[in-house]
Each structure stands twice: as structure tokens, then as C-alpha cells.
């Protein structure tokens, strides 16, 4: 967990301070410096337009790292609404919502995101929304299940018996008790969202060049793989560290919040 926390914190600091840390403009073209290998002038080398890779990696971290939390915030919002409604209200609301979730889960996550992009159109905002939509059923299922077990507790029944309104019971007694598993899922979901976001950007469905973004930079470096390994190496390491850090953080959170799952 400590390694995960250090990685995630380090990347967030880099993303926030990228404007100050970047030695060059990430979009400044310099044909004379094209495809230069890593050196003291350009620590991570340059791309086919002579743009500094280090500056692009530093500033590209912002968009890549933003997609994960932003997309999962959407999933969490709708997952909470649907999951609490299905679990707490039950009956027909539960049946209808769960059948919808079943249909959404009939599509693999990447395919669901692709379908959403097909409808919404190409662009970073739409990629973020598409990934968010793709993860809603996972949150809905988990939240419904935890709400169902939480509402059996005596303190919830007591609150209801005392005439407390449903919204109060949910906010005061149910939500605080379902947060642990939701937090664990959020962490692993962010890792998946960062990876999927970078993949969709790599495929040309999200951020468009020349905006720096790790997936876009990997895609551009693909054409120069034999001549300039540095173009794909550094953005790739960035994505891997971000996903690894978030996954390790999620594993650590799971061990702390639910020791029964610890091996």
C-alpha cells in the first residue's frame, strides 16, 4: 500500500507541477531537433517534430491521470443512485434496475465504452463519459448487495421504526457503512479507467494531436518504433506506473478495510 500511495502521490505532484517542471513547450516544433535520442539537452529525447518528450510526458500526465478519477466519479454517482435505490427500495425498482444492469454487463467493458463513443462521438470528454458509463453496472451491483445486507441491521430497522425518512436513514446509517467496499472498488476501477482511457486515446478516439497525452504519444511513437524507441518507452512507463500505483493502493485498501479478504 505504501508503494502504491507513493507512486500515486508522486504522479499527482508531477501532474500538478508539470507546468513548472517541463523544460520546453510540449507542442513547440523544432525540425532541426527531430528524433534526437535522450541527451543532456533533451533528457527523454525528441519526437518526429523535434518536440521535447520529457515536457510532453510531464504535461501529458494531466489528461491521462484525469480520465480515471473523472470517469469513475460518473460511475460512482450513477452506481450509488441506482444501487441504493435497488437495494433500499427493492421490489419493482430493484427488478427493473437489475435487469438493466444485466444487459449492460452483457457487453465487455471495452465494448460498452466503444458503443458509447459511437453514440457520443470522438473526443476526450466523450471517452471519459463512455468509460464512466461502462463501469456503472459494477458499482450498482456492489452497492445494491452491500445496501441489502446493511439494511438488515438492527440500528437501521430501529431508525425506520422511529419514523425516520428514507433519505435520512440512507444518509445517516446506510451510506457510511457501505463506504469500505465502495472505496476498494473505486481504487481498482480508477486503475482500469486510466488504462482504458489511454487505450482509447491510443486508438484515436479521444484526445487528438498535438495535445500531449500518454496514449496519443504512444500512438505517434508507434510509427517510429524502429528509429526512436524513446518515443514509446517513456509514455508507456508513465501509464504502467499510474495503473500499478492505483492497483497497489486498491490492494492495500482492501487489506486494511476488509482483512478477511487478505490471503
Amino acid at each position: 500500500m505504501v508503494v502504491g500511495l507513493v507512486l500515486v502521490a508522486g504522479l499527482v505532484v508531477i501532474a500538478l507541477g508539470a507546468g513548472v517542471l517541463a523544460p520546453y513547450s510540449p507542442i513547440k516544433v523544432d525540425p532541426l531537433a527531430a528524433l534526437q535520442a535522450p541527451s543532456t539537452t533533451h533528457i527523454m529525447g525528441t519526437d518526429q517534430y523535434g518536440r521535447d518528450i520529457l515536457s510532453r510526458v510531464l504535461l501529458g500526465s494531466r489528461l491521462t491521470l484525469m480520465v480515471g478519477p473523472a470517469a469513475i466519479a460518473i460511475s460512482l454517482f450513477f452506481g450509488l443512485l441506482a444501487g441504493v435505490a435497488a437495494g433500499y427500495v427493492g421490489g419493482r425498482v430493484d427488478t427493473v434496475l437489475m435487469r438493466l444492469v444485466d444487459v449492460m454487463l452483457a457487453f465487455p467493458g471495452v465494448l460498452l465504452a466503444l458503443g458509447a463513443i459511437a453514440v457520443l462521438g470522438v473526443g476526450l470528454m466523450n471517452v471519459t463519459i463512455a468509460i464512466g458509463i461502462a463501469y456503472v453496472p459494477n458499482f450498482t451491483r456492489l452497492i445494491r448487495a452491500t445496501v441489502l445486507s446493511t439494511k438488515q441491521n438492527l440500528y437501521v430497522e430501529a431508525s425506520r421504526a422511529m419514523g425516520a425518512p428514507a433519505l435520512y436513514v440512507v444518509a445517516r446509517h446506510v451510506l457510511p457503512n457501505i463506504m469500505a467496499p465502495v472505496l476498494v472498488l473505486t481504487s481498482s476501477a480508477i486503475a482500469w479507467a486510466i488504462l482504458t482511457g489511454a487505450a482509447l486515446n491510443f486508438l484515436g478516439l479521444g484526445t487528438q494531436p498535438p495535445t500531449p497525452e500518454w496514449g496519443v504519444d504512444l500512438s505517434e511513437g508507434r510509427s517510429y518504433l524502429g528509429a526512436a524507441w524513446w518515443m514509446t518507452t517513456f509514455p508507456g512507463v508513465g501509464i504502467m506506473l499510474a495503473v500499478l500505483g492505483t492497483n497497489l493502493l486498491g490492494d492495500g485498501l482492501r487489506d486494511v478495510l476488509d482483512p478477511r479478504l487478505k490471503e
Partner: protein
Amino acid sequence: MLKFVVLRLGSMVPLLFGVSVAVFFMVHLLPGDPVLIILSGSDVTPKQIEQLRHELGLDLPIHQQYVHWVTKALHGDLGRSIHTRRPVLQAIVEQVGATLQLAFAALGVAVVAGVLIGTLAALRHNTWIDAASMAFAAFGISIPHFWLGLLLLFVFSFTLGWVPATGTEGLKRLVLPAVTLGLMYAAVIARLVRSGLLEVIRQDYIRTARAKGLAEPRVIFGHALKNCLIPVVTIVGLQFGHAMANTVIIETVFSRQGIGRLAITAILEKDFPVTQGVILFMSVMYLAANMLADVAYAYLDPRSREP
């Protein structure tokens, strides 16, 4: 067993209905008139707009449009590509072979590598081999597979020249894409086999097998591993659908033919009949793979057939 299969098949019907409704409504969820969106950027007459609207069945009431669309789909007519004017099903059939080949090869790599690494980690529990195996699993899950593909291309194709960089034909061109896609799933299988084996080797029947004087490899491969592989069957079935969807990315990295690339091209070109067709086809494959995994699990572990 037959009852289980029939019930499981029956449970797919409402899901298939839901999937068909969702895919059908993709076109209707577009903000604005789908015909104008499809024709955007080209000079068209009102007559051409009406012709396309009629061709896509968009001039009918919505419920009739759905019945019309689903009836045609059940007869293998998924419409025609807006750009190439070819039947969508024909395009899918032409491309699906390469995608299936990649998905099966990737799962082959995943099973072999995953079982080997998981077994090794469990047998050398709490040693550096165990730690290295689990580090591999952590990296396998975290590494962006499109980046791993590029790294493998750089090393084995551009530097060593062992395999061709791009293309679809021949086994040599299948190795790197299959390893790239397979390693991601190998990591999951390795974790599953390791934890399963660690639990099984403490069971009484394993102690008995050892007490009988059986050689250690026979105990592990003949008794312990056999029981750990049942959940692996389910996971492989579930992974098949995901592998099909992830070929979208791998096919682009290795410039391979396949329905994944067909889907990406269709999305970028706003070719809705093709996009709808590929998404419908892939989700049906995904559901079928999940069902087969459940049936295989029920066959291998009769306890799971109980409702």
C-alpha cells in the same frame, strides 16, 4: 445436466432481447437526426436523405423499426455499410477468423503461462520465486497491453528480426499479438492457481496421497492441480469474451485484420450499421462464451448445478 443447460440457455433469452434493444437504440440515442449525422460533410439532396432514411427503416414507427431490424438480424441481414455498401455480415464473416485465431491463441498462452507460474509460486511459497511470480502477476495486470505489444515489436521484430512486425497471415505473425494479449490473462490465472493450490495442498487427501508414497509430481499434477483447474475453466470462459473485445486494441498495434479494427474504423467513419453489427456480434459471442463456461463448470463440479 440437461436441465441445467436448458435453464441456462433460457436465461440467455431476456439478455439477448435486452442486448438487441440496446444495440438498436444506439442510432436513436444520437443527438439530432441520425441520417443527417451519417451524411454530414457531403452534399446531398433531400431525396437522398429520404432514401437513406427509408433504407435504414427510420421512417417507420419506433416499435416497427425494432421488429423490422431484429427480424432481419435473425435472418443474418445486419444491413449494409454506409461507406463500402457491402453487407455488414459479410464484412464480419471475412474478419472474424483472424480475431478468433488471436483470441484462442492468446488464451492458450494465458493458460499455459498462468498455470505454470501459479503452480511454481505455490510450490515455492514464501520464497523469491513466489515473490517474483506474484510481481509478474501485478505487472501483467498493470502493464498497458498496447505498450507491451510495442515493446515486444521493438525487441523481437525491429531489433532481433525474429518475427514480422505487422500483418495477419501465418503463425509467425500470430506469436507477438497472442503473447501480448495472453500475458494479461496469464497474470489473473497465475493468481488463481496459486491461491487454489495453496489451499488444496493442505487438504487431507493430499496428505494421504503423500503418505501412500506417491512421487511429488504425481501428487501435484495428478491430485492437487486437477481440483484447482475447475475455477480456471470458468475464468478462461469469461476471459474469452474480454479477449475478443480487447483484440480491438491489439489488432491496431500489430496492424492485423479482424473485427476489432473493423469496429474502430466504423466508429471513426460513423458507419453505424457496421458499428451496430460488430457490437451485436461481439456481445452475442461474449454471452455464448459465458454460458459455455457455466456449463463446463457445472459439468466438472456437479455441486454447482444446484439452484
